[in-house]
């Protein structure tokens, strides 16, 4: 079975790819997907730690998995609200390209 190091590396790799997507892509929906990917990558870390941190009773540390459960729940809410904001934004500006959304320029 794979070691903790390997799981963490995969998790980091996914996170980095997600980060790269956030930085490179201009479509705000794709950026949003990349954010979800980063979240899931973090979840992988948690689950891996949970599995590799077995207690004296020989069971994984389920606190980690409960945390993942919470993260997924929050992420679902986040996606719903985020997409609603994107829709509202699109209605107002007729674009989802972040290059065009610069009204916060100082």
């Amino acid at each position, binding site marked *: *079975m*794979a*070691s*903790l*190091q390997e*799981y*963490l*590396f995969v998790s*980091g790799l*996914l*996170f*980095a*790819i*997600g*980060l*790269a*997507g*956030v*930085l*490179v892509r*201009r*479509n705000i*929906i*794709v950026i949003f*997907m*990349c954010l*979800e*990917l980063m979240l*899931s*990558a973090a*979840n*992988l870390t948690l*689950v891996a730690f*949970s*599995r590799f941190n*077995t207690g004296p*009773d*020989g*069971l*994984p540390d*389920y*606190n980690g*998995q409960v945390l993942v*459960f*919470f993260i997924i*729940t*929050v*992420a*679902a*809410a*986040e*996606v*719903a*609200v985020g*997409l*609603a904001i994107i*829709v509202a934004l699109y209605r107002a500006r007729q674009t*989802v*390209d972040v*290059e065009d959304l610069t009204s916060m320029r100082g």
Partner: protein
Amino acid sequence: MEGLFFYAFSGFAVIGALALVAFKNPVSSAMSMVASFLGLAALFISLNAYFVGIIQILVYAGAIMVLFVFIIMLLDLKAEERKTKYNPLFLVGGVFIPLVFLIQLCGILPHVPNAEPEPLHLKESARYFYDQEKEASKEEQSEIHKSLSKGDLPDVNLIGLTMFGHKGDNETIKTPGYNFPLQIVGVLLLVATVGVVALSLRKKTTGEPEPGDPDSRPEP
């Protein structure tokens, strides 16, 4: 054998992720994301986290993905066009920063213990919980009891115990549980639902400033 699965599914997830970033068409990106999440779910399952893996598939690959695709369709988005004045700094930063991050990760990983995971004592635990359950409720033999008696330990059960708290042998509280956060999350979901509805409502009037709007005060 398990090692092979690991490499296969992690490769699947990574390729899906790369495709997510690389595709120009948002629908294709969404599909690649599904692939990546499926791979991740498999990795969860390989870590004995069946419940989380299933949730990952149900919530992400199922619900959330549908939402994404639906919105993409709704907005009728086309593939990104190449902009004339795309700032190359973003491309450089977008490659450079994740790369440095990976390098830093590689710098840390050697300090992580590189051991095989300890084997899980699922059977013993199943027996232990079976005994406890039998003491608590003698009459009925539920499905859980049956599977426990067979030595199968559903990890949903364990997550539930962690989530809601359970008592140990000496009647002292072993884990206090996450009842309060759970309720908070419930409230959060409710608020999110209300918020989404509020956001999606179209304003009837446009242009007219509201009476209390201070910005509409004329300059003296």
